């Protein structure tokens, strides 16, 4: 009898896969509620990628709105997103902190040298521990943190220029107007 069951197994796997794909098609691919939204940002103190002697501490940015971007060179979405981050940085509207997530530091540095560095600071999260505290599932992800150090928004997937113009930028401007 076991053999009888086994021949049906591939079909069962297929049904499972098809259900998964069906669900995948209708997922809102960008905004996912994070339990961290509207909570105070977890602490973030890590050595800087470009200068390991120096600590990056999110506390130091209190009083201004910041973007926290989670990126790595092994993540193709992040590489795609990079020119958009460069454009955002050029606007000089909001500082971007680029958390380098479980990356090879050499590669990360080379990538920034070659493609431009949009980041005001680059905390180097080699172990991924800080990212876990932030509820990061992967890369790229972008948080918006307000002047009080509260997480106000989380964007998952590469930001396009369109996303920036319609979703993130208005919120940043609004938050900058808040006391």
């Amino acid at each position, binding site marked *: 009898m076991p053999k009888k069951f086994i021949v049906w197994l591939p079909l069962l796997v297929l049904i499972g896969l*098809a259900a998964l794909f069906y669900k*995948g098609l209708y997922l809102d691919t960008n905004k996912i509620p994070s339990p961290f939204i509207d909570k105070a940002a977890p602490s973030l103190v890590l050595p800087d990628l470009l200068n390991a002697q120096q600590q990056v501490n999110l506390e130091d940015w209190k009083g201004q709105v910041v973007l926290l971007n989670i990126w790595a060179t092994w993540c*193709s979405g992040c590489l795609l997103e990079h020119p958009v981050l460069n454009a955002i940085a050029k606007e000089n509207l909001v500082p971007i902190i680029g958390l380098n997530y479980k990356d090879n530091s050499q590669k990360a540095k080379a990538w920034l040298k*070659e493609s431009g560095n949009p980041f005001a600071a680059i905390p180097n999260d080699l172990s991924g521990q800080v990212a876990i505290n932030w509820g990061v599932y992967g890369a790229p992800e972008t948080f918006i943190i307000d002047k009080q150090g509260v997480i106000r928004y989380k964007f998952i997937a590469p930001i396009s220029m369109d996303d920036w113009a319609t979703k993130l930028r208005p919120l940043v401007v609004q938050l900058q107007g808040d006391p």
Partner: protein
Amino acid sequence: MLAELGNLALVLATVFAGLMMVLGFLVNAENSQWSTPLRRATQLQVLFTISSFLILISLLVISDFSVAYVVQHSNLRSPLFYKITAAWGAHEGSLLMWNAVLALWALSLFKLKNISDLLIDKSLAIQGCLLFGFLLFTTLTSNPFVRLDEIPLNGMDLNPVLQDPAMAIHPPMLYLGYIGFSIPFSLVVAMLWVGDVRQSNLRWIRPWVVIPWIFLTLGISLGSWWAYYELGWGGWWFWDPVENASLMPWIAGTALLHSLAATEKRGLFLHWTLLLSVMAFAFSVLGSFLVRSGVLISVHSFASDPTRGLFILALFAVFVGGALTLYAAKTPIGFKSSGFKAVSRESVLLLNNLLLLAMLLLVMLGTLYPLILEALGLGKISVGPPYFDYVMLFVSLPLLFFLAIGQRLNWKSAGKQVDKLKKSLGLSFLLAVTLTFTFGIVLNSFSILTIISVVFSVWIIFSALQVIAKARIEKKSLGLSQLGMFVAHMGVAVFALGVALSNQLANVDTKAVVLGQTVVVGDYEFNFASLKQDKELNYQMTRAEFIVTKGLQEITTLNSEKRFYPGRQTSTTEAGIHGGFVRDLYVTLGEPLPSSTAGEQAWSVQYQVRPFIRWIWLGTIFMALGGLIAVFDKRYRSKAISQEASANA
């Protein structure tokens, strides 16, 4: 007018595909009168499908900007070559090419001489189903012949990263491979349908697995080669979901090749062979779903649209679900095989299949994991190379090890022969170890994993050469099938050597440099000699020239370019590469940097010395060549001739 003709051809092609389906269902052992109309319908179907594809190409060539697709993917200034290749540069056109290739492969069934007419007719019916499904998808959601109300003066041009010779032939190669697997799929489904699953039937499928496999091997290799020199990062495989989507059918196809050998020769692994025949094509369709539906984020994705995704998903579910239901319901259970010994080619082939299956599942898991998490509401992630590089080691090293031994084992195997073999394999193993260590000591930098990979790879080559040399000395002919196998396996070894050595010995440095500055990387000195602005037909560029010297000897001059395409407002990077048999020199011009001292503009430049990297693609060429040699083995022809002879008599 031409666009309407294309549309008409597309509709007729769909109608005839439907007709193939209906006629194919009507044909059975008693009603063979439907066979001739079915074959006529097939020929007309192929004619219309190919015509509509050729019409799309003509529209691109004459730059008919009343057609939306032409506007979006070509430009008056594009060279003719890229006007043509735009026909498969985007979703709608590439889908039409998918159909054209599917139709051509369906026609190839006419060439299959050793299988009953009924099986071929039923296979044509299945091909009709596939064609009907994909053509319906094309006409309803992705018609490339849609016209615009207002005719623009110029088009937007083909995506610049695709304006490259390798990228231009990469999709047709891949498609010939992916869709070629539809033939084993159709034949196996037909066998299950008719209830005629026999070793002698499966045997004739072999060339129809090997030929698509050759195309797929070369297609994937071209894609990797393209990524290496066009993306400008010096990598050759990024474990991007779309790359994985092409790798999965390749792994399934490779497993199928091997299980088919056992089925053909010894009547073993019949279930495997049937299942893998379905899987190879299933993964091809799955790949096309992943690329075209946008469920996974990737650099390769076509613009996505949930309706399209849903349509392909439905096609995938119906085709593969149908095939697997048939498989579950009608596979001959209790199919008796003669069994095999623990040390025999059969047992190693079984191991090979298990390892390849594990590899397939690991790639699939890594590719789909982000989607699984997302579907469970756990967020979106990217599983990167760290995962793949790590898990691949655990399957690829055992695969190499068993390959070295397995290729030398005989079917069934026998006691005396095993002793002889142990000696011979031991000798080649010792040679491989000696060679690796001599080489390794000279270079003084090998890690344990590199040593293991190199020893196994060299061992595979020696163990294959032993057989070839012995046959030479004894003036015996190996047979093309055997020879092909050894060549392909040496290709695997060369590939593995390329991967291990290029990874271990690479020397990479990124520096901010000003004109005239020299940077030393490894044994090489790179002098930033000049910088020029220039204009080509459809792009502007900044070209940097580097003079490379080793010691006092000038090696080469490398040009790296940054190109800007105004048609699409995008830029690309062209790396400067000096290729060699044992090493590549690779320079990428980065961004201009804010200069520190007045007047001197600094640029970020990446310098790479990558030993043996070319062996990666060389290896794949050997694999494909091995496949090609095996296809010409006379045992796939002799019977055809003798049958024809008996038919004529």
